[in-house]
């Protein structure tokens, strides 16, 4: 009897370990969020514009805000590549019509700008509102966020220079986003059970006839990351290479 009681205790212990004994509600833990608290933090704007506060802002106002708070990093025309990748450029009237940015298919096109990539205008509004300006995020007024968004859209000729962007017309603007048809979710990388697009093979012997080195580290890059001897241990099976000396061949 004693033995079997002990056994059933052990079984109970295992069951608890496998499924933590969570209760539906935790007594005395947490409290109801107040409406003001939710309003203060729930600032996200979805592609269907859920969460977008009512308001408006003009391209002209946006230009003023841009020059005061944005241009030092992004350039007067959103073209700067000095601090961040460019905001505008690379899109055409044909792209606005098709909803696909043709330059994205060009291997020789130097850079992907924000307007070339972004499919959803809500993304611009949400991000400017939550994270800009760089050193003072969340300090723009709702009107300023509408205005800066309008200014950027005008840089890409998506809206005219006299445009006033608002919660009333933003859905119409969405229909002119140059890359609005440029996204696909047909891939296996969203869920654990997704289907892989590329698979290797587990060949073990004589898997290929010859091995050709197709790419070496460019000579200019050998010491581009500092002296590698200083990035390895001074003991062990290897040492770091001394890349402070000119390489001899």
């Amino acid at each position, binding site marked *: 009897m004693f033995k079997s009681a002990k056994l059933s205790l052990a079984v109970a212990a295992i069951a608890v370990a496998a499924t*933590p004994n*969570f209760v*539906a509600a*935790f007594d005395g*833990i947490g*409290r109801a*969020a107040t409406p003001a608290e939710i309003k203060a*933090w*729930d600032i*996200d704007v979805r*592609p269907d514009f859920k969460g977008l506060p009512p308001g408006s802002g003009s391209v002209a106002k946006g230009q003023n805000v841009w020059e005061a708070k944005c241009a030092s990093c992004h350039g007067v025309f959103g073209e700067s590549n000095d601090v*961040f990748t460019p905001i505008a450029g690379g899109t055409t009237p044909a792209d606005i019509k098709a909803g696909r940015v043709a*330059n*994205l*298919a060009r*291997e020789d096109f130097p850079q*992907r700008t924000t307007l070339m*990539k*972004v*499919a*959803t205008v809500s*993304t611009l509004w949400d*991000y400017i509102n939550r*994270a800009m300006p760089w050193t003072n*995020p969340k300090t723009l007024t709702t009107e300023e966020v509408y205005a800066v968004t309008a200014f950027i859209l005008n840089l890409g000729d998506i809206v005219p220079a006299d445009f006033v962007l608002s919660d009333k017309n933003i859905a119409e603007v969405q229909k002119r986003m140059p890359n609005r048809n440029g*996204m*696909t*979710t047909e891939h296996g*990388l*969203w*869920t*654990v*059970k997704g289907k892989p697009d590329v*698979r*290797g*093979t587990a060949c*073990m012997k*004589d*898997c290929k006839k010859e091995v050709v*080195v*197709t790419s*070496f*580290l460019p000579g200019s890059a050998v010491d*581009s*990351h*500092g002296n*590698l001897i*200083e*990035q*390895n*241990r*001074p*003991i*062990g*099976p*290897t*040492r*770091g*290479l001394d*890349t402070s000396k000119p390489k001899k061949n």
Partner: protein
Amino acid sequence: MSDTQRTVGRLVKAPENFLAKDDAKSPETMRRKFLAAGAATAGLGLAAAAKAASNPVSGKGDPNILNLPEHTTGLGMPVAANGYGVPSKYEKGLQRRESPGLTRVSAASVAFTPLQGTFGIITPSGLHFERHHQGWWDIDPSKHRFMINGMVKRPKVYTMDDLMRLPSVSRIHFIECGANTAMEWGNVAVPTVQYTHGMVSCSEFTGVPLSALLEDCGYDKKNGKFVLAEGADGSSMTRTIPIEMALDDVIVAYGMNGEMLRPENGYPLRLVVPGVQGVSWVKWLRRIEVGDQKWATKDEAIHYIDLLPNGMHRQYSGIQEAKSVVTSPSGGQLLLDKGFYNITGLAWSGRGKITRVDVSADGGKNWRTARLETPVLTKALTRFNIDWSWDGKPAILQSRAIDDTGYVQPPVQLLREVRGTRSIYHNNMIQSWRVAESGEVSNVQVS
């Protein structure tokens, strides 16, 4: 052939020539340096013999044995000399480092983990890779709040006191930035494993299963399809996560490797999303919102989208597929001599457990199966080892991971056929390290 290291066949053993300046000042160090230099010279003579000894000695024996050092004949340091212990001064080479030129603003940048020098599967917390979008903060935990709102019956606010009172789990998982190995899509670009693969780390995380908190708030089981995770930093990082994943193994974590999260890793609260790229593991986590549509946030609509050759972008990619890399010997290292080596490396899969790792020393013609060291855990780094005797001839080292879905890590050519060379994210190609006759190891790609 004029390279000294090549003439000797391999490396001159004098590690003391690489000490930090303040260490080199001590007379004890200088003495050892002198003695070591003598030993190294003696070693050269012996190396000319048919069989090189790995630890050559002349005269009566090794002065490191014959002359008792100060640490054997003197009194050592007292306890608690360091209230929080730090690595040995001889370990200064292993640091998180930026890749010069990769980014232009250090507050929106990356510092890579020195995988060339880590052991086992746990990344020391101080060497965990860093990726910040708008700088990092050390937040006062008594003022940090966590909110759940959206499609829930009871929107709630939790303090850290609340969260730390709840039942916790501790789980070991890898975290890999989606852009790890991004620089190698088109060609070899960086010299060492720190820069090719150092945006992966692995820790034991402790916290509350998100499923328990969603349940506590009465989430909408019928219409809630996604959750949005949001950070408390300036960028207020946001990512959409499917509800099945949120209910499966996602953790609202405060602990990392037995202590609280480090500030650079989200102190006091971060999301742990096993198997998914690091950007979804939102740091300084302030809010979870339950919703019925995806959010298309900046980091899932402008960045972290994968460009395909036809100009389309894959959106909402997140899973890190099976991948592995040999961490030693690896790029930018120099082998000491011919003879025995333990080829060691790391393998991981965002879809489950690693079941096998094969290693090639001839650029992928022939493979041998490596030993997997325990523990082998789901969505965690797995350490592999395999014996190798280097004959002094050129070799190309590779590793290939297989996970419990049967997925086999692909060579770069197969990835390029489908995804081209500009998709930036999710590069899980087989890595090649070329060992030259000089013992020099370098990053290459092979066909």
